[in-house]
């Protein structure tokens, strides 16, 4: 069962099937020794341990969390930490803000990047090569460097504490998604559009009715990536939005305090668990899209 699961997943990576088979054959003689499994076990502790400790903290009373010597397991699972996470602040409201921003941004950026990628892949005009080089170069400009000047600029023209920045960023296409779409559209045969051109269809109709439906896997990849990115983004909402209409990411770091202003770690942990559940679900069910986009981001150089 494990082996079939593996082979289907590995097909997502660009290894030629024949190469793969040869490799397996050459390796089958020497099975890895127990040390490899011990190493993997230690690595799993490193990678999974923080998740487990977070969940355990979310189920403890504050006294259990602070007790010395340390208590690994809670006496009784404190599910009311999760209730407190909902009621100590407007959790659902902030989650709604995150959902709205992430969905709007992801739909917009996916469509705009598809259009731009299509232009670079299928159309021609002077200056196309130079423009595409600029696209590649802007992939290297880190957002964090432009964010502070953007913040000053937006605060002067009244866009701070609105959702407009995300709409504008969404409309503007992202160089990385443009690159993904361009690679995909370039790989399709020319004959696809020939009949439509003879029938007198314009390029926009060709794009919307022929190419866009074909690019479903890239559309999904782009949407999922943008969604998890916006859901997880901290710095842009922290800079651009006030606390009363910010996103969940900022809210869970800012609230959950006792009357003395100290964060209550157990309730914050419960909120963090609920905050990452959507990301984990998306990841588990759509892992191959993440794998594919990561691979193509790594080999573009």
């Amino acid at each position, binding site marked *: 069962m494990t082996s079939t699961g593996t082979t289907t997943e590995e097909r997502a990576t660009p290894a030629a099937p024949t190469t793969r088979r040869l490799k397996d054959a050459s390796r089958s003689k020497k099975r890895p020794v127990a040390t490899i499994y011990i190493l993997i076990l230690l690595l799993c502790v490193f990678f999974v341990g*923080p998740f487990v400790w977070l969940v355990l903290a979310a189920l403890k009373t504050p006294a259990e969390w602070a007790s010395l010597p340390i208590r690994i397991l809670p006496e009784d699972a404190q599910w009311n930490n999760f209730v407190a996470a909902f009621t100590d602040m407007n959790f659902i409201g902030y989650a709604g803000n995150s959902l709205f921003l992430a969905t709007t941004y992801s739909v917009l950026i996916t469509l705009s990047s598809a259009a731009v990628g299509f232009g670079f892949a299928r159309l021609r005009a002077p200056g196309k090569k130079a423009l595409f080089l*600029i696209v590649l170069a802007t992939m290297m400009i880190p957002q964090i460097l432009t964010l502070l000047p953007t913040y000053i600029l937006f605060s002067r023209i009244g866009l701070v504490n609105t959702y407009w920045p995300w709409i504008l960023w969404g409309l503007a296409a992202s160089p990385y998604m443009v690159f993904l779409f361009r690679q995909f559209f370039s790989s399709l045969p020319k004959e696809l559009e020939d009949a439509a051109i003879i029938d007198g269809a314009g390029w926009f109709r060709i794009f919307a009715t022929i190419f866009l439906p074909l690019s479903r896997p890239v559309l999904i990849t782009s949407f999922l990536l943008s969604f998890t990115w916006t859901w997880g983004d901290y710095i842009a909402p922290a800079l651009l939005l006030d606390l009363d209409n910010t996103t969940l990411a900022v809210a869970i770091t800012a609230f959950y305090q006792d009357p003395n202003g100290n964060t209550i770690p157990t309730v914050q942990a419960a909120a963090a668990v609920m905050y990452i559940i959507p990301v984990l679900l998306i990841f588990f069910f759509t892992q191959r899209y993440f794998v594919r986009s990561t691979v193509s981001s790594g*080999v573009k150089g």
Partner: protein
Amino acid sequence: MARKWTRYPKRTFYAFVAPWALGFLLLTAAPMVYGFLVSLTNFDGSSPRYKWVGLNNYIELFGDPDMWAALARTLAFTVIVVPLTVGGSLGLAVIINRRLRAVGLWRTVFFLPSVVPVVAMAIMWKLVFNKDSGILNAILGVAGIPPVAWLIDPVVFYSLIIVMLWGLGGGMIIMLAALQGVPVELEEAARIDGAGRWAVFRHVTIPMISPILFFQIVTGVIVALQVFVQPLLLTNSAGISTVGGVPESTTLYMVQVYQEFFLSNRFGYGSAMLWVFFLIILGLTLILLRSSRSWVYYEVDTDAEREGAAR
């Protein structure tokens, strides 16, 4: 019909790429130019009575010991983190590339942390690193090691590195694809010629995947240099307004920039810091690109490939 029919009207191309072009001009280029203009003033973020100060901010920057300290810290951080993440992700990929039981499960486990939002990551690791209630000190305590103050100077610098390493699964996936792209015939030929496992890895596999290694190093350097949210949230969860609470040893360059903006209200000076940093990153990237000619092996003629790709 006044105009001649053409399959590729120029205007159509420009219309299709317009969203990106306008976005680049208005949301990337304009803020950068605006940031440069602000860097020539003593703007404090709110009062409209600011003055042009010419290059004074830049001159002051060169004599600012805090800036130099933050820059040196950031470079040290980068020099430690990049080899560890690139080497670590290659190591994980080598493990995952073997015939193992439940290999898909291990790969998911290693990959997963790289998609966890930074806020949740910081909350998790704060709980792990907690001096009294953290699991890490509890484990060390079993071995008789006294509790370590993981989130306080100077140890917090290394704690931050551990947190960065936790997310290296994305790099592993890229390395895995690279390893599986190496033709098996090459490795087998070397084995037949009597090369050992390590020699094959060192002299066949590494050169074959060197373009991807190189790309990982370049992006790794760019990412490591501008790390900001992790040090902020790992030690100070109340947000940007309390950026002054970040310990000295994790006050990396971008942390210092945010302190100038939101602690000292020196928007002009902070903007100058940003521009200098942009030039430093650009310079380092160009140096790395230059160095690549001597050690990165390109199998195909890159010019021909580029021709083909541009079609």
